[in-house]
């Protein structure tokens, strides 16, 4: 199997994954190799537009000679490495990670979480009814997006997207530590008192639905959110001359949210406040 990159040619690294020969370009991760060969390794904190923080540990695999398991999402492939993705040891850790997460936060809007929980035989209930949970009510302090930290798995994606990896606004960070660590703006203030510029790029990368459009949040609360009934149309933003791609999510002839294609070489899924949230004028039909 071979993962073929675009761009300048790079040296190929040869190693084995589950006993099979693998070739990936230098710099590729173990996860890249797994994906290229069609292996399903669960990931939560890994994102296609970001350097993963490897904090969730859902993608751990065994590497020959390593004392502990290693995160496939960020460990780069090395020549001669022997990787095993599906051992009892790796599966055990993944199962426990899923149990720990599902017992502490609400994964109901995390894509694939339910499938993985089933696949790995995770039983989040076994920590008992008194198991500590991230007990937070949603923070609704602006009209654009909602922060529901009881769904947050602290993957750091929003921090990285807001910070040096994309937006350079640095409005959000992690505060506190341990189980009390939370994503927060300075002084745990409302978003409206923070440095947030409402680009929504944090919403774009959030893997669990902890950050969501106000429109989506309200519709979910009303029971009217229906992803199956939505169409997606990718178009060009008309606000300025950059020409960012917008994907309009439309349900019942209303735009319910706006995303951006991650494979776009200009935006990589990022937008500004106008592209992301400034769509109401389209719907002013009066």
């Amino acid at each position, binding site marked *: 199997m071979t993962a073929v990159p675009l761009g300048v040619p790079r040296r190929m690294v040869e190693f084995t994954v589950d006993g099979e020969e693998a070739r990936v370009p230098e710099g590729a991760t173990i996860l890249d190799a797994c994906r290229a060969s069609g292996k399903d390794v669960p990931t939560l904190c890994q994102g296609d537009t970001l350097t993963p923080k490897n904090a969730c*540990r859902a993608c751990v695999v065994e590497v020959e000679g390593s004392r502990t398991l290693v995160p496939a999402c960020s460990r780069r492939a090395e020549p001669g490495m022997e990787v095993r993705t599906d051992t009892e040891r790796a599966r055990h850790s993944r199962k426990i990670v899923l149990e*720990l997460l599902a017992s502490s936060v609400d994964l109901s809007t995390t894509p694939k979480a339910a499938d993985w929980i089933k696949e790995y035989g995770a039983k989040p209930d076994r920590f008992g009814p008194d198991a500590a949970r991230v007990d937070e009510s949603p923070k609704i302090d602006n009209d654009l997006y909602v922060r529901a930290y009881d769904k947050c798995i602290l993957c750091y994606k929003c921090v990285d997207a807001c910070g040096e990896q994309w937006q350079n*606004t640095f409005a959000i*960070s*992690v505060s506190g*530590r341990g*189980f009390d660590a939370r994503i927060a703006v*300075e002084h745990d203030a409302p978003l409206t008192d923070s440095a947030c510029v409402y680009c929504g790029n944090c919403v774009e990368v959030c893997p669990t639905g902890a950050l969501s459009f106000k429109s989506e949040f309200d519709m979910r609360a009303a029971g009217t959110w229906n992803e199956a009934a939505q169409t997606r149309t990718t178009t060009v933003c008309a606000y300025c001359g950059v020409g960012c791609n917008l994907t309009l999510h439309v349900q019942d002839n209303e735009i319910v949210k706006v995303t951006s294609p991650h494979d776009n070489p200009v935006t990589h899924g990022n937008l500004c406040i106008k592209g992301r949230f400034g769509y109401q004028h389209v719907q002013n039909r009066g």
Partner: protein
Amino acid sequence: MDLHFGDGKPTDEERAAVDALLGPPRSSWEGAARDDMRAADLRWARGGREARERRDLLLPGLHALNDRIGWISEGALGYLCRRLTVPPAQAYGVATFYAMFSVKPRPATVLHVCTDLACTAAGASELCAGIEARLGVGSGVSVERGPCLGLCERAPAALAVRAGDPVRTAVSAPATVEGAVLAASAPDSAPVEPPAAMAVPQAGDPSLTLLRRVGVVDPSSLDDYRAHGGYTALRRAFELGPAGVIREVTDSGLLGRGGAAFPTGRKWQATASQPDHPHYLVCNADESEPGTFKDRVIMEGDPFALVEAMTIAAYATGAHQGYLYLRGEYPRALRRLEHAVAQARARGLLGEDVLGQGYAFDIEIRRGAGAYICGEETALFNSIEGYRGEPRSKPPFPVEKGLFGKPTVENNVETLVNVLPILTTGAQAYAAIGTGRSTGPKLFCVSGSVDRPGVYELPFGATLGELLVLAGVRDRLRAVLLGGAAGGFVRPDELDIPLTFEGTREAGTTLGSGVVMAFDDTVPLPRLLLRIAEFFRDESCGQCVPCRVGTVRQEEALHRIVERTGAAAAGDIALLREVGRAMRDASICGLGQTAWNAVESAIDRLGAYE
């Protein structure tokens, strides 16, 4: 970066505390009054890259505020951020990471009372209750129960910190209700701490190597240090040259004493040979393992030895800047080391031209602020750099990309101090001490149910029993904790375990950082385990899931079985094993990987719940 600093204004005192560290602001861009400088300010913007390169002053800045005011207000944090061009959200994340800082108003005096293992065994709970009863509401003192203060030989211990200019500290250990209340209410008139040598029961014994000067030398006098053999090792280092020093250290077989037992010579060689520059030296003095206090005793009793040893390590590895990262709970060690560094600098033993050899090296002391995780080497780098003390993922290893992304050698205090006898007596003589694979002398921190707790120096190879006899172990020994909270328990019938890296490994336990804590049968084991679990839950940085949630689930399970045994506990013990295994296998760093060790050993070796 387009930073948003909010509307909070610092008080004059907060501004003064920050300015004392950073100097006065040069323009309104970094927080000076607008009226004074308007004309100049319109011509250029200050800050930017230049200010961001001072990001590593964030932690000292937070200390400056916390020391002067006692807590860190919104306005103060905003001003500090403006001065350093640090985003306030990040600074808030850093400020809330450390246990010694508060972002909420609190009294100027904080009394930290240790409730960790040795202190709990010595009655910390009753002490806390007594102190809290005496210092009722409105006393102006905030009593905070916390982890090990590194005063285990004098357990129970309390540390009072009173904010002001200057900040005042006082220690009460062994603490009584009266002593602790006095330390908190009048830190200046609290009794002086006993000298560091009191923690060394062997003090004066001519067979000592690492501790030979503790109690003999005046820790404030460079001349006295030199009169006792100080700086002969550095002279020898200059004779040998950097490669020669590394060869001696490699030949000596010195293994790191911080717990991981990595060959020091190999680490130095790997750093020295990195093409990227500059190289950095970091001394890890963040001794936070419950039960460990050996580094404190060296730093308080023989501070120049550490300064000399750091100079040698830097010379060998090609570093011109060293950072000494000292845990925030060691005020006396801080004073002694600040003095020692200043003395050495004044006398040409640090600075542009060390010993007239044309080699430049200087040491900056950085104070931790109450976070066990910052003893992890990469978390320590983040902490110095002004980020949350979260460990980085490895590889890349510090020898390649460490502090500020540059090749860095990091050693703990005890490891570095071993370099002095290696150079003065030679690698061969040094390697002749101890066993084949564990060479040299080793420091052990003995506390708990013994008559003479303290730091002991023995050649590697002595048995646990021999050490305990030396320390006057009391009757009815129930268990010994080796290596601290991250280590493991052994039984009283296992006292013939040789105290070497290989011997403890063969016995299925660890030497760790050299903690030997004895518990007699009056100590309720399940409560002790609960305290260990609570410690790890408290000290987890929260970055990775197995540790952040796993430590919570571990503590919950131990709570459920605290009074149960046998079949009633079996389900929860099975759960503990499963979670513990994932924590060990999948956590990012050593904290999560070892958080289950002590509990597991108590179940398997001591039959804690049978």
